[in-house]
């Protein structure tokens, strides 16, 4: 009898679970976490490539303090990510950030005369995008989030290497303008001459984020 009751419970649970998976989830009304063209729109398929440049009028900056304006400013920057998972909302989609560029940069750090190059190292980075609008980029111990800046100075060209504090960057996604905004994400100097600034705080606003499907549809977060 006891065995029968256990079996019965198990069968009931299995049936209920099957029914739940088969039935259209209420969350499906909002669509997947990442959708094309509208909230609740068509799911962004796994493998889709998402990309964005700086939002209109925005700059990517790496300033030496959170409140100042001394540091490096770039008027061009792009990122590219590939969708790895895109579950039903609410939830968290995962991506792989495969590209991140910064260009057309200037420096107003005393003693520097310009920016020769900025390179994001160790790509790709694991990236998540949650229904709550939080975008998180995470490096690994073997491949930390790192950027190499070559600054021109009166005394020579400085190669300054910075790593993201905590090996993570956190941004905010918004369906208004389909943007992702990073604000004062801290970097610390990892290597380079003493003339490299010790810290950098990365800020940028990217958008609109678009997919690589036909028509380059806008990407929404649900």
């Amino acid at each position, binding site marked *: 009898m006891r065995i029968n009751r256990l079996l019965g419970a198990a069968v009931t649970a299995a049936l209920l679970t099957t029914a739940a998976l088969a039935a259209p989830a209420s969350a499906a009304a909002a669509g997947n976490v990442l959708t094309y063209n509208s909230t609740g729109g068509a799911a962004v398929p796994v493998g889709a490539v998402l990309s964005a440049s700086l939002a209109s009028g925005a700059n990517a900056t790496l300033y030496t303090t959170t409140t100042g304006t001394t540091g490096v400013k770039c008027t061009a920057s792009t990122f590219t990510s590939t969708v790895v998972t895109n579950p039903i909302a609410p939830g968290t989609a995962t991506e792989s950030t495969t590209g991140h560029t910064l260009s057309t940069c200037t420096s107003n750090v*005393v003693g520097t005369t310009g920016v020769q190059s900025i390179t994001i190292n160790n790509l790709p980075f694991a990236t998540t995008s949650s229904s709550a609008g939080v975008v998180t980029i995470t490096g690994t111990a073997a491949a930390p989030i790192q950027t190499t800046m070559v600054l021109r100075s009166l005394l020579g060209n*400085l190669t300054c290497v910075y790593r993201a504090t905590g090996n993570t960057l956190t941004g905010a996604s918004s369906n208004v303008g389909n943007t992702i905004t990073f604000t004062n994400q801290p970097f610390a100097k990892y290597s380079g*001459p003493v*003339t490299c600034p010790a810290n950098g705080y990365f800020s940028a606003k990217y958008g609109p984020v678009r997919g690589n499907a036909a028509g380059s549809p806008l990407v929404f977060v649900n």
Partner: protein
Amino acid sequence: MRPFRTPYPAGGTRHRPGRRSPARWRRGVTAAMVAVLAMAAAALPAQAAAPGGIYTGLDGCPVNSAVMKDPTHLQVGCMTSTTNGGSMTIGSHVVPITSPIRLQFGVYWDASAPVVDFPSGTTANVYRTVPPSKGQTLTSKPIEVNIPGIGNIIPGVTSVYADVELAGPITEFVPLAAGEPHPAFVMPIKLHLYNALFGLKCYIGSDRAPIVLRPTTGTTSPPPPAGPISGDPGVIGIEADPNGHETIVASFTDASLVDNSLAVPRANGCGLLGTLDPLINLVFGLPSAAGHNAVVFSDTDVSLAISPSLADLTSALAASS
């Protein structure tokens, strides 16, 4: 035309009673002296005031040097540094640096734009140096050195005074080597030894065979048996000119420069016809091969002004006075 009249009687100091009182005469002499002094002062070229503010200490900057005036130079500047501590080790003998050692010179980055590449990817300018317009490139005070095995009863007789002197121009000045495993500069020196018995030209090292220092604020790679030692670039500051000139000042405070790859040659010129050279060589173990010697310049403060043009540098220094 009226004849010119002196304000006081002909004959100089003689006073003529009834014509001028002594007090009036003294006032007249005083006024005349003031006038003469004023004229003399006006006739002399104006003495430039010492640079101030961020340029303090750069009063020996050779901005009027013909070498500095070469218009093809990509950059010009001047440097001063003061070392307040450290030591020099020859074999097993350690001589503490107990008096400040000051360096000052002008620099220029010539048209060939010489650079050195570091493993980190940084590319640093290599500057040539120019002697200062005022004073010596290297200034130090003699340091008393005990003679091994002899009690120092009579300083200068039972001890030696050693003074560091340049044995050639400082070369390969690389300010951006701060913190890198690369010499900040190359400096040939000789140690001038003073002792009642040594005569006036007793040296360890010479202009032809100097002790070549390659001090670094990074980590050394000496030959054995020495192991690596590390310097310290100290606290760096970079300041823009307060009056809008292009000149900047890089400062390094409390830096430490080290070199333990130097070789120390034999003594020369000590005693009559060098008769005491062997004794000094024996006592200090000379020549002493690389890997057995070291120099540490600690508590060093450096100030370097650098500019893309001599006119800008000159104006910046003048404006700071």
